């Protein structure tokens, strides 16, 4: 019984580090334009080392993944292909902090909150009629580091204040 408990406890921890982004490749089958970025391990270290001295916070990143696809017409991708990622983000220590749904557009922001008010990751899933984008940034970050990242590309959207958007902004 103990063995079983340990095994079940270990599965999420193992899965946390190993989302297979190839599962999202189906999304881009009919895409007219695509951006696929996978940075991890030594390549990511090389990249951050070439960004300069102001990017100390980026040195804690363990993975940066972007999948962005553009389509000529609406309905050329199956939103169900995002299900594995959404399932992955639901089962672990990820918290959905923003969920905006409109007629043909959804945007979700997830954060992985670590102890001591540290960010362990940031994920964005944006699905529009003719465009779908997934951004997944893994790695330990201080809340204050999010502000530092603003200068490089990530604007302040209020995540520094407790790690979650206020309930008013949620539209579940």
């Amino acid at each position: 019984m103990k063995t079983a408990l340990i095994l079940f406890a270990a599965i999420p921890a193992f899965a946390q580090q190993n989302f297979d982004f190839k599962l999202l490749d189906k999304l881009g089958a009919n895409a007219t334009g695509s951006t696929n970025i996978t940075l991890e391990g030594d390549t990511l270290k090389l990249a951050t080392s070439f960004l300069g001295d102001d990017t100390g916070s980026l040195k804690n990143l363990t993975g940066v993944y972007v999948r962005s696809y553009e389509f000529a017409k609406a309905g050329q991708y199956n939103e169900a292909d995002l299900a594995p990622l959404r399932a992955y983000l639901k089962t672990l220590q990820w918290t959905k902090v923003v969920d905006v749904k409109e007629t043909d557009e959804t945007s979700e922001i997830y954060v992985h909150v670590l102890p001591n008010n540290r960010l362990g990751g940031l994920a964005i899933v944006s699905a529009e009629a003719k465009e779908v984008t997934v951004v997944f940034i893994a790695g330990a970050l201080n809340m204050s580091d999010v502000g530092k990242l603003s200068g490089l590309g990530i604007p302040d959207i209020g995540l520094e204040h407790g790690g979650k958007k206020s309930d008013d902004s949620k539209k579940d």
Partner: protein
Amino acid sequence: MNLDDELRAALQREPAPVDFAAKVTAKTRTSKARVVPFRRRPAALALAAALALAALVPSAVYQYRQQRRAIQARDQLIAALSITKVQLQHVRERIQQNTRHKI
């Protein structure tokens, strides 16, 4: 003179010249002195240069490739952060729009 006498005369032992040993020693010394220095041997120099290049080129190529890989990775990271920025701005705008509608 018959054949036996001719052969005996031809094959009779003769002593070496007096200065034979000195001549041989002198010849040996002269040939040693003629050793061409390494730096004056074009083939040896070429070989040494080739060996040095063989040792240096892979290192230089590796460094060049590493640098190119790092620049590509940096550009990808900047692109990723740029896309993240655009997406976050987009979400923020939509939240602001929805909040205004509610008000």
